[in-house]
């Protein structure tokens, strides 16, 4: 029934409450700036060139994954297996390196690992109609156990024959003064920005995310768009995994798990930045930067790891609540 929607006074041109509009649109940015100022005051070494570089490096992997999550969430879904797609990229590529393959086939192999995971997610959600969180949760748990089986209970994979320099470059190289992962993030950012905000595909993604039935009746291939979102998200996550593997020169099982919640949090923080509360590429970047800086600050301040989990959880909850509340107040 539509009574609920019609019942609410939909004010066409009247200005909404200024205060909540401000919180909704600039709250996250303001909090980010404030936090940076506070950290530079209390955390020694926060505002140094080296540390900023460290933050940027840390953000690069999270940022790339958040781009994939942004795509999936814009299409109306969620991907709880995105951390495992990262692992797939890392483990497959490093295994291929260990088996003596060159950098290019190893990278392609890693990306293919992500592709398979994305395709399973896409099939379950778009083909069978499983709720996204359930489908990807199932894939999450299955791939996680596969990883444990593959790594004999969680032993990292080391390429004892050494790593080709070109593969090494992905995680450790520099272009001028800028670390390659940061360049990769910038490139992915541009790619996803074009995809979501300039290409027809992006228009379809948002349309499907908002109203699949109306999109279908407008001739949009809803299943294909949904399927594609999951595949692209997993492939980009696998790419992030390859960068991570290159940085640590090994394949660490379950390395992707912590990125799941962080990427969801980044997208949601990003939604508070966008005017209409939608997932957006630039918003998610702000979210990822926010989270990366928080993590960095906590490390600098020697917060114990279990406190960090708690603080991150509280932060996510706070942002979710604030975003929802600000949006309900605005309409």
């Amino acid at each position, binding site marked *: *029934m539509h009574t609920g929607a019609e019942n609410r006074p939909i004010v066409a041109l009247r200005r909404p409450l200024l205060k909540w509009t401000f919180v909704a649109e600039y709250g996250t940015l303001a909090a980010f700036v404030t936090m940076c100022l506070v950290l530079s005051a209390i955390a020694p070494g926060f505002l140094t060139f080296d540390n900023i570089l460290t933050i940027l490096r840390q953000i690069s992997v999270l940022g790339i994954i958040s781009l994939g999550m942004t795509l999936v969430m814009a299409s109306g879904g*969620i991907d709880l297996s995105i951390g495992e797609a990262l692992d797939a990229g890392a483990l497959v590529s490093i295994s291929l390196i260990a088996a003596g393959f060159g950098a290019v086939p190893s990278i392609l192999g890693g990306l293919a690992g992500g592709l398979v995971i994305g395709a399973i997610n896409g099939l*379950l959600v778009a083909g*069978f*109609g*499983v*709720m996204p*969180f*359930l*489908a990807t*949760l*199932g*894939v999450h*748990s*299955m*791939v*996680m*156990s*596969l990883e*444990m*089986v593959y790594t004999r*209970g969680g032993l990292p994979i080391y390429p004892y024959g050494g790593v080709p320099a070109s593969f090494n470059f992905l995680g450790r190289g520099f272009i001028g003064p800028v670390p390659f992962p940061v360049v990769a993030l910038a490139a992915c950012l541009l790619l996803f920005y074009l995809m979501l905000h300039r290409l027809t595909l992006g228009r379809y993604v948002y349309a499907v995310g908002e109203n699949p039935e109306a999109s279908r009746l407008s001739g949009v291939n809803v299943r294909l768009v949904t399927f594609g979102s999951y595949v692209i998200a997993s492939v980009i996550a696998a790419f992030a995994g390859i960068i991570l593997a290159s940085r640590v020169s090994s394949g660490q099982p379950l390395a992707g798990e912590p990125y799941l*919640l962080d990427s*969801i949090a980044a997208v949601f923080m990003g939604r508070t930045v966008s005017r209409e509360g939608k997932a957006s590429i630039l918003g998610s970047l702000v979210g990822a930067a926010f989270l990366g800086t928080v993590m960095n600050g906590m490390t600098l301040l020697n917060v*114990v*790891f*279990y*406190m*960090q*989990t*708690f*603080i*991150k*959880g*509280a932060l*996510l*909850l706070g942002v*979710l*609540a604030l975003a*929802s*509340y600000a949006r*309900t107040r605005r309409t």
Partner: protein
Amino acid sequence: MSSNTVRGGTMSSRKLRWAGVRNRSHLAVRVLTIGLFVGVCVLFAAMSPIFLMPSNLLNIVRQTALLAIMSFGMVSVIIVTHGEADMSVGGITGLSAAVAVVLLVRGAPTALSILAAIATGLAAGLLNGILVTKVGLLPFLATLATMNMAMGLEQVLTKGTYVPFADPFIGFVANENFLGVPASAFLLLLVYLAFYSLLDHMPTGRKIYAIGGNLQAARASGIDVAKYTVLTFALSGLSCGLAGVLLVGRLSGLTPLAAAPLLLDVLLAGYISSILSSVGAPSVSGALFGAMLVGVLSNGLAVIRVPTFYVNLVKGLLIIIVVAANALQRRRRSIS
């Protein structure tokens, strides 16, 4: 004309009602699931003499009790949210256990510690409910956030390491026999009866089912949707609080995040209940069966010495099959 259609409705429902079966494909799902249950039992019995030994069967009951109690809360949430889930069950159970064990270590009386654990579960469940109804978050997102907070808090309380404490009473309930039967079986029976009465035989249960069945219809019938949604999440939290106490007994203390993997088992039990149900929404009794199936599977695979990661693999695969089957059933229903 009209008399025809009226009679038609009567006949079809009578013919099928004796077995609680909707249609042929639903019958097939039931036969398959129950067949699977019997099949794995036979398989395990054939592969290991230990499986059918009384001590092991009692052990299965003990293991299942914890899982089943959590599953009852989970099905309540699946019912009221029309298929969404409470992702925080593992987190809340762990947090409740941490509260209990920390209090016990500090010398608090057993009763107080148990109450505090249950109250913690209840509070976390209420938080979920408020996030969903008042703040308007999607259930799985709200509970995911709660899960993370609870896990963080659990680690803060336990300082990230195993906290040993053997409380005689809690240990007795969790591990010992009473009248030749595991004491936890009595607890399970009690909790089952409470949930079964509430959901299947009380007006409150009707309201919870109505909200999940059709939100608009429930509103139109004057049901306070927010109130009963909060209540359901609170119930789930409450059952997790209870499970947390049992967990302390089973582990004689608490290993942080020991409860986290239970989420998958509980989800599995809940969605098995969904696909078994004759009405398209899960039931408490179905969850009991689902928990038993998962319990037998976990125990049997361990008894025949399958490594843990393969067990998880089987469970992961199973959950994908179960949720896909559930989705297909739903789609079929919405088309017909």
